[in-house]
């Protein structure tokens, strides 16, 4: 059964607000009674995904779907896209600017962190158009 479906807009280049959506998602999931370890994994994915949109894209949308069985998070942006997804998934590989690194991000760990915290993880991208990152975290059967 679907418990919640919510979409959030993310503004690209707005470093001041970067992370607000993930903070909101954390509160929403906590209110839903999602157990701490699963909640933590999901918000880490959300935060990294949100930072990627802020750093690289013009804008993006994050959609959170919670069911009895799992939490899905899909982040789609209008941005430059990723030419080589396999390379981007390697820890330490980064295309970040100095500005991004000064913000504490862009050390080549974002996508690997997201993958590590997901039970299912998929990246789709078209250069010049944008990127979609899909994450699923399975919830224990006993709720």
């Amino acid at each position, binding site marked *: 059964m679907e418990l919640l479906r919510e979409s959030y807009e993310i503004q690209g280049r707005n470093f001041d607000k970067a992370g607000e959506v993930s*903070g909101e998602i954390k509160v929403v999931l906590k209110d839903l009674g999602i157990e701490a370890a699963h909640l933590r994994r999901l918000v880490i994915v959300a935060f990294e995904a949100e930072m990627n949109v802020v750093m690289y894209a013009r804008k993006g949308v994050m959609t959170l779907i919670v069911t009895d069985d799992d939490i899905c998070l899909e982040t789609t942006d209008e941005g430059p896209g990723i030419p080589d997804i396999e390379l981007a998934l390697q820890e330490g590989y980064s295309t970040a600017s100095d500005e991004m690194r000064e913000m*504490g991000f862009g050390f080549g760990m974002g996508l690997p962190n997201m993958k590590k915290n997901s039970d299912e993880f998929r990246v789709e991208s078209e250069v010049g158009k944008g990127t979609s990152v899909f994450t699923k975290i399975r919830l224990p059967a006993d709720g």
Partner: protein
Amino acid sequence: MKLSEIRDLLGCELLTGEEDLGLDIREVVASDGMSEILAFAKSGELMITGLTNIQSIRTADIAGVNAVIYCRNKRPDKRVVEFARQKKIPVLVTPMVMFDICGILYARGLKGVS
């Protein structure tokens, strides 16, 4: 080790979180890279960083760390401290550099997370 002992050892100034000085800290995560913190923190750690922007506290909140110490007298602006207060994350500042902080805490039995 109690957060109050860490404050005294490192000569910290407390910016917010007076009520949390009794927290028991066992593990530490230290980095200026927020993704490093997110990758290694398991929740409940002390976070040491030189990054003082709003993302440092957002990262602390998302990663579930218990307290934040800024090194080398780097001070976050008021808005960042206020945000930490809202999130109930104690924030301290020390004049010491990252290497010395880690050395002192390690010698006292605190461990890094990996």
